[in-house]
């Protein structure tokens, strides 16, 4: 029996590894889920006079997408966000996170703008309130301003169908 032990240990290990393929280690449960989205007021990119507050989105289900012009993964995600914006899905607000180069406006003008508004979080304070660990990250916020879902990493077709769609159904849009 002893001689089969290495194989047995390996197969158990392989079982765990297989399970691991379907888990996302980067995704740490956010303490914000089920709580009110932290309030803030930030100037909007391209229009320094205007300010954006989450309060202004009350009564709507919306997405807060944390991105930055320097983030490569955000550029990958951009095409899908454009598609979402055209499809009439929930409005997307793009929190421009720690954009020191001040390129967001020009970049969006060049590649297309999927966002309803682009609040400018230059020093990253709002990012800290939301527990942003990296870009891109996306929060789904309901009509009462409660955070319902947090997604780490770029959103693609499968992430949208698997995570966002069921949550949106549950909220009832």
């Amino acid at each position: 029996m002893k001689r089969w032990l290495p194989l047995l240990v390996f197969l158990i290990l392989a079982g765990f590894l297989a399970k691991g393929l379907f888990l996302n280690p980067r995704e740490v449960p956010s303490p914000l889920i089920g709580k009110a989205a932290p309030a803030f007021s930030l100037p909007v990119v391209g229009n320094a006079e205007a300010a954006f507050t989450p309060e202004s989105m009350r009564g709507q289900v919306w997405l807060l997408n944390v991105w930055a012009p320097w983030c490569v993964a955000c550029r990958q995600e951009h095409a899908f966000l454009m598609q979402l914006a055209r499809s009439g899905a929930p409005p997307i607000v793009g929190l421009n996170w720690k954009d020191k180069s001040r390129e967001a406006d020009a970049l969006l003008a060049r590649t297309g703008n999927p966002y309803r508004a682009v609040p400018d979080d230059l020093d990253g304070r709002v990012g800290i309130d939301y527990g942003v660990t990296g870009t891109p990250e996306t929060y789904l916020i309901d009509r009462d301003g409660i955070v319902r879902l947090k997604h780490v990493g770029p959103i693609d077709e499968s992430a949208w169908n698997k995570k966002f769609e069921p949550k949106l159904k549950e909220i009832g849009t």
Partner: protein
Amino acid sequence: MIPELGNLALILALLLAITQAVLPIWGAQTGNATLMRVARPAAQGQFAFLLLAYACLLHAFVINDFTVVNVARNSFSQLPVVYRVTATWGSHEGSMLMWVLMLAFWTLAVSLFSRRLPEDMVARVIGVMGVISVGFILFLLATSNPFLRIHPAPLDGNDMNPLLQDWGMIIHPPMLYMGYVGFAVAFAFAIAALISGRLDAAWARWSRPWTTVAWAFLTLGIVLGSWWAYRELGWGGWWFWDPTENASFMPWIAGTALIHSLAVTEKRGTFKAWTVLLALSAFSLSLLGTFLVRSGVLSSVHAFATDPSRGAFILGFLVVVIGASLALYAWRAPRMISGGDFTWFSRESLLLANNVVLLAALGSVLLGTLYPLFMDALGLGKISVGPPYFNAVFVPLIAPALFLMGVGPLARWKDASLPDAVTRLKWALAIAVATGLLLPFTLDGFNPWASLGFFLAMWIALSVLVAFRDRLKHAQGPWLERLRRLPRGFWGMQLAHFGLAWGVAGITLVSNYETERDVRMEPGSFTELAGYRFTFVGSEEYEGPNFVAARATIEVTQDGRRAFTLRPEKRIYNASGMPMTEASLHPNFFRDIYVALGEPLDDSHTAWAVRVYHKPFINWLWIGAALLVLGGFLAASDRRYRIAVKPETVPAAAGLKAQGA
């Protein structure tokens, strides 16, 4: 056209690999010499086509062919040519192509240096390596093709990850892969021996030089990675117990155990099952490492692109290869009869104890690395396991192995005498204990961890001297002549052990006595650390080939005299916008002075967060590692591996050579 040529070469290499995997093994099983003879040309042809494929990829990178997705994602028109060359293995696809190229290179080496081996053994070894190659070329073609085109082509590339734009990274991955993949040879030898049922001393002898060379490359690769992290990440650390590091460290531990176990199997014909299992494990852990790094099941500071289909493919392949080899092991285990008795105190028993300790240490690293995955898979929550766990568990586990290293090489095979060993080592022990106890008092007061480290380093180093004295005492002739006549195997082992002692001393000193300071600095301000005064002169901006950087000038004085100037940088890379810290070091034999530039603290970029480190004796770590690598290569070049031995005449237990290295 050239990328398509590369793709075609890859497909032809696959066809040859399939031929190489099927026909020679079939021939060996049926005794068909014609089929067995296919092994060498198939392996050589496969290598030629993979080399051609690699050259095509290299060409695409060098000429900035952004119609190739891989080039567009990982290169950039402003990237200096040397980094465009290294970008070929900086990407996932390119690095996997390098993986199979290395495997083909090792197979080529086996096909060239195996003339003295029985034909069926060669056929099986090359065949097994062909099976592995088939799996990985299929993986490339199915999930990670480096030659895919993109339409329309982007105007410019996304740039290579700036972290990799460092010359430590130029050679780290090839060396690491040489080691990883090199264990495939020992693996193939073990499988061939299991299939044929000939698990004799000859098999162990053939495996030894290959294993040692692979181990030396792996050591070099790991150390280069560590050295790169030390200089490039700007945190001043050299080992983070990151999953990716552990992924390379686990096969290294298994390989270390294998080298020692092979020695026993060759000399004494014992531990056969154990040695075979280690040979299977070392390569299996290399495959596991490839899986962990490439599948993204563990989160790591190394942000590799991850894709579940890739992970699923490697895992499937892992299950087939490792599962089949362990099943073969279980099936053949009853045939492995170990010869050669030994008593509780002999070189065999000491090596066995050492192996058990190494494996326990390996287990602790494996557990710590995969624990977050286990917890997550069982729905028990998200946790991360960090350096505190590894330092608390690994250090006490490895310490006995280091102690045994001092005794093992001096003990006789079969039956050693404990009183004799005590007589020979009592002075070494006394000096080592005294060093361990007293040295910390001259530095910073009593410190048990420092004591343990100093004791072990001194103990191993002195045991090396004792071993030389014992070997030279009874030899004839002048001293230099006696030294020259010692076999390279002996030199290699002692050099590696001495290097490890040196490294342990360095690790002990740097981890217990390093100091650092985090300060805000602006022109004219200064800080003091370890007897040095650091004066911030100012900072300036300059443009590199593919980045803009802020470079600070820091004058360092000692006792009022100007000592040297450090110029740490903070770079922003043009294509990715990624910020990078370029630390500035002033190394010498006794310490490194290390300065890293943090964030600017005001809008005009005149005040900066600056981290200053004093790293005592850190270079001993690199020196020790270099000796370890050198020792490995030296041992593998021993004359006895090159002289012709008819396998039939080698007795299973070569008891006559009981005094060998």
